[in-house]
């Protein structure tokens, strides 16, 4: 019978071994707690290694104008830029701004969609972090109808 402590210890060992074995392309893929705990948009960007935010036409965000249900807001992020390291989705007024990070590789297109929870109406950011650390963003305001009844 394994107890929790032993299981945790073994998990850590396996993680360390995997890290040592090396997955260069995905080396940064370990869960970045600091970034997901960050309150603001710029804080989160800094935590994942991006610089100052700059608006860009090459980053596209897809989100509804009005979300009737803040628990399920479809958000898409895409970019046509080359040399993008990560694509991020952030909601400015959520308790923690960062929602999702996608590590872009050569084999996958810079185009992801998912669904997010939003506590209140807010700007939603799509941010592309380039290999040289620039943070390019596009944003869109999404209004959340409170109560979820579409009133």
């Amino acid at each position, binding site marked *: 019978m394994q107890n929790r402590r032993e*299981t945790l210890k073994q*998990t850590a060992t396996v993680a360390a071994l995997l890290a040592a074995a090396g*997955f260069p*392309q*995905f080396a940064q*893929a370990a*869960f*970045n707690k600091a970034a*997901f705990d960050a309150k603001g948009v710029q804080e989160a960007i800094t935590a994942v290694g991006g610089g100052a935010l700059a608006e860009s036409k090459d980053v596209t965000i897809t989100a509804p104008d009005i979300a009737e249900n803040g*628990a*399920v*807001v*479809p958000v*898409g992020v895409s970019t046509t830029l080359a040399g993008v390291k990560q694509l991020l989705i952030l*909601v400015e007024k*959520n*308790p*923690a701004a*960062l*929602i*999702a*990070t*996608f*590590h872009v*590789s*050569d*084999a*996958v*297109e810079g*185009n*992801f*969609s*998912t*669904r*997010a*929870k*939003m*506590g209140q109406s807010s700007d939603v950011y799509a941010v592309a972090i380039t290999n040289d650390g620039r943070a390019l963003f596009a944003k869109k305001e999404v209004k959340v109808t409170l109560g979820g009844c579409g009133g």
Partner: protein
Amino acid sequence: MADPMRIRAQMAGDKANVRVLMSHEMESGQRKDAAGKLVPAWFIQEITASLNGKQVLAAEWGAAVSKNPFLQFFIKGAKAGDKVSVSWKDNRGDTRTDEATVS
């Protein structure tokens, strides 16, 4: 053990459009239960996807992704018959991997 994911991978031009529906509570850690106590966060933290065993995507999620999450992405250079597998790991250490064939 969590319920299986539903994965659909379809060719769209020279890319495979992969859509995944996972089954997970995605508890945000902000909600209170009937007794007024915070419900601890429980959410998918890491997602990886591979094509024929070679990893093509890594993603990290926060607690603010919706319950029973949906994810769509495009794999370049895939062809019909290729195997796409997707795995996730949540903050309790649970994992799940499912596989689908590109059609």
